[in-house]
């Protein structure tokens, strides 16, 4: 698995045509259709990488993208993030999501919110929100409901708990509840998490001791293998 890693650097030309299969052929002009994901861009005829990362390819749809890790968040539509309310204005809240600009959360962007009945969030409140609009020239916009159902679906104010800050790559991995570290911790005590794609993870459990253990175990798990994670969790549990 590790032997076929293809690491690319910015400026590298990516050749995508040799592996294209019949299904991705565009019917009209016989030029294979290529879909580019994060980290890749088109410069005239060529496909060029913009970051250091691992080149990934998915055959159905002929999709190509770079898997890379970083710490600074750049907003993308549809991603879930954890933000901190920094200011309350008449029509919207200003929310820090760790990007270049604060995001905007309209006061009506909550489940069932009306002009008369809307949540009141004070500065410093943690919110779990979905990015409804992201554009490089504008401040990102947030919403606290699922647009397909109109329901909160877990979005909204986060009460209690603690926040861990980590790399975006670790956040992506933790989205999977079967990630070794979460599974091992779950064997010992129950807890709640909310993973923001912006490098923030909210954790909560019934007692502060567990929450602290949880926070440190998750933070330390970034570069550990499954076996090392298990050993770390056990040693932390033993110390309690």
């Amino acid at each position, binding site marked *: 698995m590790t032997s076929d890693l293809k690491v690319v650097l910015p400026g590298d030309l990516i050749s995508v045509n040799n592996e294209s299969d019949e299904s991705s052929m565009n019917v009209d002009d016989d030029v294979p259709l290529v879909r580019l994901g994060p980290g890749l861009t088109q410069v005239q005829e060529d496909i060029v990488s913009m970051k250091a990362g691992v080149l990934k390819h998915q055959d159905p749809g002929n999709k190509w993208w770079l898997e890379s890790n970083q710490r600074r968040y750049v907003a993308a539509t549809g991603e879930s993030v954890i933000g901190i309310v920094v200011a309350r204005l008449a029509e919207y809240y200003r929310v820090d999501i760790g990007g270049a600009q604060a995001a905007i959360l309209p006061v009506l962007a909550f489940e069932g919110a009306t002009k008369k009945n809307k949540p009141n969030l004070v500065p410093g409140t943690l919110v779990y929100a979905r990015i409804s609009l992201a554009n490089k020239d504008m401040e990102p916009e947030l919403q606290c409901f699922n647009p397909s159902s109109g329901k909160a679906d877990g979005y909204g104010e986060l009460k209690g708990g603690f926040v861990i800050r980590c790399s975006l790559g670790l956040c992506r991995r933790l989205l999977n509840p079967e990630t070794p570290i979460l599974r091992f911790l779950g064997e010992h005590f129950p807890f709640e998490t909310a993973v923001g794609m912006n490098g923030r993870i909210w954790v909560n459990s019934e007692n502060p001791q567990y929450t602290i253990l949880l926070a440190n175990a998750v933070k*330390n798990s970034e570069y550990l293998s499954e076996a090392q994670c298990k050993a770390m969790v056990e040693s932390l549990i033993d110390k309690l």
Partner: protein
Amino acid sequence: MVREAEPSLNEKQFVLRALKDGLRTDGRRPYDFRSIQISFLSEYGHVQIQLGRTRVTRVSAKVTAEVVRPRPDKPTEGLLLFNTEISPMASPAFEIGRPSEEEVLISRTIEKALRRSRAVDTEGLCIVAGEKVWSIRVDLHFFDHEGNLVDCASIAAITALLHFRRPDVTVIGEEVTIHPMDQRNPVPLSVHHIPICVSFSFFADGELLVVDPSIIEEQIREGDMTIAMNIHKEICALSKAGGIPLEMDQIIRCSKIATTKTAEITELIQKALADDKAQRQSK
């Protein structure tokens, strides 16, 4: 200007709640200092100090010496200068050319703890009275700010001063010869005592206290105090700039904690210096 992100209310409440149970968010107990890692670079007097293991506070100190003319009012005293300008590398909250209150306080505390407490014998730096003295400068580089820069900086500065060697000089009449390091063994500075800064943060009206605060503890604390002490249990400097008023007992308790921490840290520094010396000799 990049601002330091304020912690959320949830984090503030959690830190306080955990402290009431005697717990800290990085897994330490209230009176625990983070682990201190001392590493020496190839030149004499160039040291890097790291507080903690994963999220670390990191400061390095570099000592250099040059020959200058002494101040007219103190013709027989050498100079000892500190440069504590903090770059945005340590934290986006620091700006070049516009020192924040925090930066000024760090700089003042280091000055008071090391220079004004006469830790280094400046008279011994005189070469020819009124003509030539050594000027020793300590440049502190702040790399990572995860809380308690001041203690980290003070440990870096004093360790670097202890590690430093200046070129040997001979004076015959008016003639001053500075011997290059490869010709004659360089000489260490004469250090009278080793002041170590130990910082405290206070919460809940001064009821709760922690040693060696992490960055989140610094952000939500109600008051703070730094005690610079040496192994002889002498207080070299004490800084309590604002914050909540403290009970006398609390200050006594802090100075007792500082006594033990100072002893531990001094021992650590001396061991690191001895190890480095042995390593350099074996080369």
